[in-house]
């Protein structure tokens, strides 16, 4: 890298700091209720392991994320857990953070950076799980599938989508494959009709679902890849009176999604464990801040794997979730 910036906290190695409570940061890739759960986990770990936790949610993409990281470095933060939005192109700010603080990635990895470890799951595999749910939902007869997502540029969205497509097409796992959206993808039994993006406009998310129902009267299954998508699809399906006719497979644990599963209108969902992301990230950072390297997981990867939730285990899962996130929980 060209002009190496001087250490942000170079002149602030205050001796008193070692004694004080370390401060670590939990940086998300945007604002969402998913991250609110993550923040709860982070804060819980903060209390448990005696560190201050600062949560940062960049409202508008990479630029804001970069600025927030810079500002954390300015503060002389002791550790950062980040969900990089575009890992390949963010290497320099990530390395800058790694150089002046302890950096780990969570939710989404940046393998080419100097991060110490990654806490999260494999989005591609989660996508394949989601594909399995679609297969179960549509059954042997197969059918057509419509995908909905906020933005396709985000790595997690692309990997989920690709995993799902590969699963439906019965391909070998390969997370570098990419089917460009816009064209139908036909397999033996399943057809992925299209992927529609809404730029996080929730009104639009719903009207996209409506338009899909209008366009494909015999649509087999809808999949919402971001947390807010499935409830919007569910709304549209219910209003069209197509419950059961159009299957709905979800991602993440929005309340409406879980309720939909219990009601039988959502076939199932693939959940990550944001609470655990937050909790584990802060636990690791707290250890690192105190100079304890043993907290680092083997191979630099802590797998907090995704789970399939269907009618069978939804109630139990929801109970657990509420216990963790609601005041008076864990």
């Amino acid at each position: 890298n060209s002009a190496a910036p001087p250490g942000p906290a170079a002149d602030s190695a205050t001796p008193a700091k070692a004694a004080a409570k370390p401060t670590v940061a939990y940086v998300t890739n945007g604002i969402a209720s998913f991250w609110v759960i993550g923040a709860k986990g982070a804060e819980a770990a903060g209390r448990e392991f005696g560190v201050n936790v600062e949560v940062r949610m960049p409202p508008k993409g990479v630029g804001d994320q970069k600025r927030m990281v810079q500002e954390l470095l300015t503060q002389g933060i002791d550790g950062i857990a980040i969900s990089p939005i575009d890992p390949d192109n963010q290497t320099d700010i990530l390395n800058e953070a790694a150089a002046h603080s302890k950096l780990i990635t969570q939710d989404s990895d940046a393998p080419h950076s100097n991060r110490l470890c990654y806490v999260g799951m494999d989005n591609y595999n989660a996508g394949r799980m989601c594909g399995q749910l679609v297969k179960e939902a549509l059954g042997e007869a197969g059918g057509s599938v419509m995908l909905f997502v906020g933005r396709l540029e985000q790595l997690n969205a692309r990997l989920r989508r690709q995993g799902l497509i590969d699963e439906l097409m019965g391909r070998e796992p390969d997370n570098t494959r990419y089917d460009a959206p816009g064209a139908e993808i036909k397999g033996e039994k399943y057809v992925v009709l299209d992927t529609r993006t809404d730029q996080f406009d929730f009104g639009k998310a719903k009207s996209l679902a409506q338009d899909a129902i209008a366009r494909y009267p015999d649509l087999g299954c809808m999949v919402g890849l971001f947390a807010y998508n499935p409830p919007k699809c569910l709304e549209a399906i219910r209003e069209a009176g197509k419950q059961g006719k159009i299957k709905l497979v979800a991602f993440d644990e929005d309340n409406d999604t879980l309720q939909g599963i219990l009601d039988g209108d959502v076939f199932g969902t693939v959940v990550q464990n944001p609470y655990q992301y937050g909790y584990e990230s802060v636990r690791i950072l707290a250890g690192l801040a105190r100079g304890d390297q043993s907290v680092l997981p083997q191979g630099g990867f802590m797998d907090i794997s995704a789970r399939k939730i269907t009618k069978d285990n939804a109630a139990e899962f929801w109970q657990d979730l509420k216990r963790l996130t609601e005041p008076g929980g864990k």
Partner: protein
Amino acid sequence: MKKTLGILGLLIAVCVSTAALSPNFLKAYNVENITTWTSLFGILSIGVAFVIMTGGIDLSIGSVVGLTGCLLPWLLVQKHVDPVSSIALVMLVSLAIGLLHGFLITKMRLQPFVVTLCGLLFYRGFARWFTGDETQGFGNGFAGLRYLAVGRVPIPFVSGWHLPVPFLIMATIAVAAAIFLNQTIYGRYLLALGRNEQAARYSGIHTDRMIMLAYLICSLLAGLGGILFSLEINSIQPSGHGDFYELYAIAAAVLGGCSLRGGEGSILGVVIGAAVMRVLYNAINLLGIPTQLEFAIIGMVILAGVIFDELVKRLAARRRTVASPAQATPPAAF
């Protein structure tokens, strides 16, 4: 009326060509959906049209939609306030917002753009703060209330077709607004002061009060729109819900014949303007055009529409000049 013809032509053109290309376009289900969305955006657009007519602007609409959209489910679900009081409270908040804007613009003489830009930032931040960024929603409850947004009223004698309730709400508002604008003195005052505030003031009009009123109407309708949007969408993310809606509302108003210089506007035109935007979105999805191109197409169609409108106007003006010599000679001056 004449000004409305251009945009009406555009609407018809878009509808006819979509219907020709996609058999699903004219199905009851689709038409009802378009009508619902048009109505929701139409309510916002009618509100902002009043502000635009005074020569002002309101950029805070999207954030007000976000704020009221979060507030209603928060009151109902988290605070267990009863529906009537909740709605009253939410409308009161919108009212206060409108008053605040009006006050800052007329009494403090601040620029509307600045005031409402600060509003845009502030209401969004406030919504995020009191919800703690957590998604708000009605879950499966409040079906009665949600009927306001998702309800459908059967059309007598036409089986299979329904009128969405939001359409009825919007139509009522539009009719009231049109009467207010064209038939009452207040509408005339708004138009007069939008063009020449001093002339209006010298004519004994309380221009400040009228401007206040315009911002009040705008915020109230944004608040109402916010309520309906939240009932329609059901789950609301405080950080993003309503983002950009002010631009859609303003675009619809301008498409519908409002001039941002003030003093001009037609309610019917504004509603048609809102419809054009919604039909375009729908057409893009029905025709299977890649979502990436969505914005590009909408931008182009709107631009083509206004250019066409302008050319037609010029042609008409030229024709009038050429055609009039005969009638230009007044019967006899003396």
